[in-house]
């Protein structure tokens, strides 16, 4: 369920029926999106869009934080693997640090 895609809000306007809409850019394709559920969003923000409706603003700080966690863990895991391999190759030199 729930295909939703992040897009960047370009310009905001009201449609002829008075509904708050925006043009959002999804990797180069521009589509019309309803912003009624994200009143705080301004041009330049990213929003998560499902069936033509923005459901949430993408929190760029949180996104960066999540991503950092992944990268750090990856680097740490690589380091540890390197240590494990070194320890396995030279057991007489003592245990792993």
């Amino acid at each position, binding site marked *: *369920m*729930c*295909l*939703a*895609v*992040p897009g*960047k809000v370009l310009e905001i306007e009201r449609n002829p*029926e*008075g*509904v708050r809409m925006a043009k959002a850019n*999804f*990797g180069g394709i521009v589509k019309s999106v*309803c912003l*009624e*559920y*994200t*009143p705080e969003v301004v041009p330049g923000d*990213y929003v*998560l869009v*499902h*069936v*033509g*409706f923005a*459901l*949430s*603003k*993408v*929190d*760029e700080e*949180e*996104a960066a*934080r*999540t*991503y950092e*966690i*992944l*990268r750090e*863990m*990856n*680097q740490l*895991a*690589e380091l540890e*693997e390197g240590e494990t391999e070194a320890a396995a190759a030279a057991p007489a030199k003592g245990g792993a640090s």
Partner: protein
Amino acid sequence: MKYIDEYRQQELAQGLAREIRRTVTRPWVLMEVCGGQTHSIVKYGLDHLLPKEVELVHGPGCPVCVTPLEMIDRAQAIARRPDVIFCSFGDMLRVPGSESDLLILKSRGADVRVVYSPLDCLKIARANPDKKVVFFAIGFETTAPANAMSVWQARQEGLRNFSVLVSHVLVPPAMEAILQSPDNRVQGFLGPGHVCTVVGYEEYEPIAAKYHVPIVVTGFEPLDLLQGTLMALRQLEAGKAEVENEYPRVVKREGNRVAQDLVGKVFEVCDRAWRGVGTIPQSGYRLRDAFRDYDAEHLFQVGSIKTQESPICISGLVLRGVKKPHDCPAFGKECTPQHPLGATMVSAEGACAAYYTYGRHLHMKPAAAGKAKELEVAHS
């Protein structure tokens, strides 16, 4: 694409897979709730990256799959009418009813249109005042705000020729039904990330506590799913049972209050029948009385509908994570996406359909294939 590509990187995926291997000391069974998550897992082959101790079973998070046969027949009965323009998301077009599907009806002259957004239906209604525009409003909580807005907006504008056929389902009651079942094997959940964008995750906290299961609200990209899996496994290894949020870039604990507000004005909770599972109390939405004029079920009396489900279909067991698609003797044989026998094969998000599309029936090990053959003989 920003906020998509970063979450598909191979190196980071391998890093997560490594960390998962280090974390796991015993077998665990996790369920990802959403059909979209199942789709992603199978499409990227994520379960192949996990150690064999970790089993992912697939949940009932596919609103297309669980739409009752009777509702599908009702939709088709309405679509057949010459005064109706029947609008639907693409997902529902090929779902077979007792006799036909919407795409076939379209080929026979019914005015059936695929829409991307419920607001498109309002455009169609305005442009065709002499026709009745009916929108098949299916979905989980994620789609409810969009569907609600179409009804709300129609009333604002005084549109008289628009109505919705509602078949909304809710996640938490389904999760509880699974957890309460005596053959339940699920020990932890990857929660539905986009549902929680709307409703938040407060209502999952009592479930985690009552059944002592970790629930990690998880996104849909490969790295999200792997990270959510890791977080759930860490909890299980530590004996914890909390609700955690893997998807904070779009999910907040309280969800989207503005959306919840409008949904609450337009819909109310009701009992719903889930195909393959049965009726789950308080597990769906229907239109409030104030919006009766927009309720296609009231506006179109289509008479009683007799439906017949296939006796050999085990989709109920698949939806609850008790069986896998290839455990079913009909999988890939009598039952394929071209001629589906039941709920989990009828839509691209169903576990059986996802497995089939991504070729799992072709990768069955000889032992499993032999077992399937035995079952087939036993059943016949």
